[in-house]
C-alpha cells in the first residue's frame, strides 16, 4: 500500500455508516521549463496532494477539499463536514455513488522527468531556428488519483504526460508547433522546432487581404480549437440541461467525413482510464459519419436527462462543470497536406487560432484570430503569407454537411484554447469560413 492509500484509509475510518461518502485524492508532480528570447527564463516544479470529501445525508450534500497539510486531523476534517451538513440545502440532483463493481486498480509507481531532460528538449527545439527568437515550454506531468466510497468502490489510476510547444519569431512573422505524448522520451523536439521554424521563415513580410468568406485549410491546432469548443459547450450534457447546447443527437448535423471518438482505452491516450467518480472509461463513438450519438455525461447529468452515463466526470470540482471529453480523436482521412493545398483555387491556410470566444452558445458563433503561420493559397499553391484576420463564424456550420472538403491523413496531439493533451486531430479542408476583419479592424 502506498502512502496516499494510507491517508485515505485514515479518513475512511472517520466516516459513519449512516452517510453516503466519497473520498478522493489527487497527487500530482508537475514541472514546466519555459523559454523566451531563446533561453530558459522560468523553470518550475510542483508537488501537490489534494483531498476531496463529499458526504450525502438525509438528502443533503456537502463538499470540502483541503490539501493534506490543511488537514490537521482526519477526525476533525470529517467532523467539520458532518457538523455543517445540516446547513446545506436539499440536493435534488444527487445521483448516488459509483458501485463497487466499477472498481479499477491502475496505480503505478512511475518516475518523474527531471529538469535536465526538459532543458535538453528545449535546446533541441531552439537550435532548429538559428537566428530567430524562440519561446515556448516543455512540461511533464505525473498524476495519481485515488477514490473510495461507501458503496465499497476502490479505484486508482496513474497518468503521465509530456509536451513540447514553441514558436519562432522574426521581425515580421511567427511560426508555432506542438507535440504531446504519454512519455517525455516520445517527444521529438527537433521535428517540432523544424515545423515552427519553417512556418516563421515562410510567414515573413505578410500581406493584408480583405476579409470575407474563404475556403480554408486548417492546421492541427486550429482544428483542435473548433472541436474543443464543441466538446465543452456543445457535447457537455450540462449545456443540454441548461438549454445552451447546439448539438442535435441522431441528426445529420455535421459533414459525413466527421468521425469523433473518445479513446481513453488507447495506450497512447493521455490521462486517466477512470473518471472522477472512479468508474472505468470506455472508448466511445461521439459523432459517426456526421451524426452525434451522445453527450458527455456525469452521474448527475445522466440521471437528469435519463441517458446512459458515459463517465466523463471532471476531476476536482465535483460535477459542477458537467461532462468533458478528454481523449477526443478526430478520425484521419486520406488526403495529404500537398494534395489539400493543390486542390484550392483561392483560399487560406491557417495554422492556429487565437483568443476564440463564443458570441452565442446555441449557434456556436465564435470570434477569434489567426496566428503563427497563415498563407494565401492561389491556384493550388501557397503564394503569400498573410497578416492578421478576425473571423466570426459558427463552428457548427464550419463542420456542417457539405462544408468539409477533405480530412488530412496525419493526426497528432494538438494544443487548444482549453489546454493540451485532450485532442488528437488531423488537418481539415473546409469549403467556407467567414472572416469579418483584417489588420485595420
Amino acid at each position: 500500500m502506498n502512502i496516499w492509500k494510507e491517508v485515505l484509509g485514515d479518513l475512511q475510518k472517520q466516516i459513519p455508516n449512516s452517510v453516503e461518502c466519497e473520498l478522493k485524492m489527487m497527487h500530482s508532480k508537475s514541472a514546466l521549463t519555459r523559454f523566451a528570447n531563446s533561453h530558459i527564463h522560468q523553470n518550475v516544479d510542483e508537488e501537490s496532494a489534494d483531498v476531496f470529501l463529499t458526504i450525502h445525508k438525509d438528502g443533503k450534500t456537502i463538499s470540502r477539499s483541503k490539501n493534506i497539510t490543511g488537514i490537521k486531523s482526519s477526525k476533525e476534517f470529517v467532523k467539520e463536514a458532518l457538523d455543517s451538513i445540516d446547513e446545506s440545502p436539499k440536493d435534488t440532483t444527487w445521483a448516488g455513488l459509483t458501485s463497487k463493481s466499477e472498481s479499477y486498480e491502475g496505480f503505478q509507481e512511475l518516475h518523474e522527468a527531471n529538469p535536465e531532460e526538459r532543458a535538453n528538449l528545449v535546446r533541441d527545439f531552439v537550435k532548429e531556428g538559428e537566428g530567430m527568437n524562440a519561446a515556448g515550454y516543455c512540461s511533464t506531468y505525473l498524476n495519481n488519483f485515488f477514490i473510495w466510497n461507501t458503496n465499497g468502490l476502490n479505484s486508482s489510476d496513474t497518468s503521465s504526460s509530456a509536451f513540447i510547444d514553441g514558436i519562432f519569431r522574426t521581425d515580421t512573422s511567427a511560426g508555432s508547433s506542438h507535440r504531446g505524448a504519454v512519455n517525455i522520451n516520445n517527444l521529438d523536439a527537433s521535428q517540432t522546432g523544424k515545423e515552427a521554424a519553417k512556418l516563421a521563415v515562410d510567414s515573413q513580410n505578410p500581406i493584408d487581404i480583405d476579409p470575407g468568406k474563404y475556403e480554408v485549410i486548417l492546421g492541427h491546432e486550429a482544428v483542435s480549437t473548433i472541436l474543443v469548443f464543441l466538446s465543452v459547450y456543445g457535447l457537455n450534457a450540462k449545456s443540454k440541461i441548461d438549454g445552451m447546447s447546439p448539438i442535435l443527437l441522431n441528426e445529420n448535423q455535421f459533414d459525413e467525413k466527421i468521425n469523433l471518438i473518445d479513446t481513453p482505452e488507447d495506450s497512447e491516450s493521455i490521462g486517466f482510464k477512470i473518471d472522477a467518480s472512479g468508474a472505468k472509461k470506455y472508448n466511445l463513438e461521439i459523432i459517426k459519419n456526421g451524426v452525434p450519438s451522445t453527450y458527455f455525461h456525469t452521474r448527475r447529468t445522466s440521471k437528469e436527462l435519463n441517458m446512459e452515463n458515459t463517465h466523463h466526470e471532471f476531476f476536482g470540482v465535483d460535477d459542477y462543470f458537467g461532462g468533458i471529453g478528454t481523449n477526443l480523436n478526430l478520425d484521419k482521412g486520406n488526403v495529404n497536406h500537398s494534395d489539400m493545398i493543390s486542390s484550392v483555387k483561392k483560399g487560406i491556410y491557417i495554422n492556429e487560432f487565437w483568443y476564440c470566444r463564443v458570441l452565442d452558445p446555441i449557434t456556436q458563433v465564435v470570434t477569434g484570430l489567426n496566428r503563427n503561420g497563415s498563407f494565401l493559397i492561389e491556384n493550388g499553391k501557397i503564394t503569400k503569407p498573410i497578416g492578421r484576420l478576425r473571423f466570426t463564424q459558427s463552428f457548427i456550420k464550419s463542420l456542417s454537411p457539405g462544408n468539409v472538403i477533405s480530412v488530412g491523413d496525419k493526426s497528432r496531439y494538438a494544443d487548444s484554447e482549453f489546454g493540451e493533451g485532450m485532442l488528437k486531430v488531423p488537418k481539415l479542408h473546409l469549403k467556407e469560413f467567414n472572416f469579418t476583419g483584417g489588420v485595420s479592424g
Partner: protein
Amino acid sequence: MFDLLNIAIDSAISSGAKYSDARILVSKSRNIAAKNGEVENFNESEKIGLGIRALVGSSWGFYSTYDLSRESLISSGKKAFEIAKASAVVSGKETPFADVPVVQDEYTTPHEENPFKVSSTEQIDLLVNSTEQMKKLGSSRSSGRLDFWDTEKWFCSSQGHEIFQNIIESGGGISSLSVGDGETQIRSYPQSFGEYRTGGWEVIKSFEFGKHTQRLAEESQRLLVAPQCPEGVMDLILEGSQLALQIHESVGHAIELDRILGWEAAYAGTSHLELDKLNKHRYGSELMNIVADATLPGALATFKYDDEGTPAQRVEIVKEGIWTGVLSGRDSAAIAGVKPGGMVRADGFSRLPMVRMTNVGLLPGESSLEEIIESTDNGIYMETNRSWSIDDLRLNFQFGCEAGWVVKNGKIIDMVKNPTYTGITPEFWGNMDMLANENEWVFWGTPNCGKGQPSQIGHTGHPASPARFKNTRIGVRG
C-alpha cells in the same frame, strides 16, 4: 512561519542561488452557485503550502510543496536552486534584479464582516431567493454565484524581508438567461461573471441583488424579441463594466513589461508597445488618463506589498493620451531601466510570481452618462460584456455585450440584441471624446484573468466610468 521560510531560503542561497524568496500561504475559499432556486455547488477548500524561487544566472527556478517539514523545506530550497541551474543548458544574459526597501510589516484587508464567519445558510439563501425570483419571472435559467477568498501570506527574502498579509476578497453576481428559437439572451448584474472586490460580506450586501432580479428577468426575455443591433460605423457609448474589460484587454495586458520584453510570447503574446516609445506614443485622446493603483481602498487588486516585497503604489500609465508607464517587477524593471512597480503576484503558493495588473483604471472625466447620451445623434449604448477577443499584440479586438440601446438625437429609443463592436486599440482610444465623471466611477473587478505557463488566474481591478467613442464599427456578425 518566517522561521520556516528562512530555512528554505538559506538552503537555496547556500546551494549557490544569487537571490531567493519564498512564501507560505494558507488559502481558504468558499464557492456557492445556485440555479433556478436551488444550490448547484457549495464547496469550501483550504490549501497550505510553500513556494520558493531562486535566481541563478538567467533563470528563475521555482519549487512548491505542501510539505512544511524541516527536511522538506531544506530540500525545497535546494530543488529551487537545482531547477534554476538546469536552465544553463539554454542560458541567456544574467537576469538583473532591482533593489526595493527591505521591510518587516503586516497588513490585513480592511473589512467589516469576514465572509467565512457569516453563516453559509445566509449566503446560500441570498442566491436561492434571487434565482428563484428570476425563474418565477420567466427566466429560462437563472443563476447566481458567490466566491470568497481568505489568503494569509507570509513572505521572506534572502535580503531580509518579512511581510505578513491577510487578503480578503468577496464577490459574485446573478444572471437571467432566456432561451428562444435557436438563440439565448442573458442579462447579468453587477456585471457578467460577477463583481469582485477586496473586503468582506459587506461587499455582497452592497450589491442588493433583490433590487435587480425583475429587471434582469424582463430584459433577458425582451432581448429575444428585440431587433438585431444595426451594423455600421457610428458612436459607441460603453457602460462602466464593459469599459473596464476594454481597459483590461487593450491597455492592461499591453503595458505588462514581461509581455513587452517577450517573456510571454509563446502563449499570452507580446505587445504592440515598444519601450523606446515610452513617453512619446499616443495611446488615445487627451481624455485618456490611466493609472495602475494598488492602494485604492476596496478595489480587487489592492494590497500593501506584492509577492516580491515591493510596496504597492500608484503608477501613471497614460497621461492625457500619451503612454507613460508600465506594469513591472524587480527583474523586468531592472532590464527596462524603470522603477519596480510592485505589480508581481502569484496565483497561490504553487505558482511563480509574475507581472500582474493591479487596479488599472481610467480616471473619470467631467460629463454624466445622461449628458453623453443627450449629445449623441446616432449611436449605440452597450451594457455588460458577453464576449471578448483580442489579438496577441493587444491591437485588434472584438467585444460583444449582453444588451444594446439605439441612441438617436440624444435619446434612447430602442433595445437591440447581440451588440458587438470591433476596433484597433490606438484608433479606438483616440476616438474617446466624452467620459463620465466620478459620480459614475466604479472599481470594477476581474477575478478570472488567465496568464502564464503553468496557467495562473489573476484578480485585477479596473476603475471606470461610462465613455463615448466616435466612429466605431458596430454590429459585426457571423
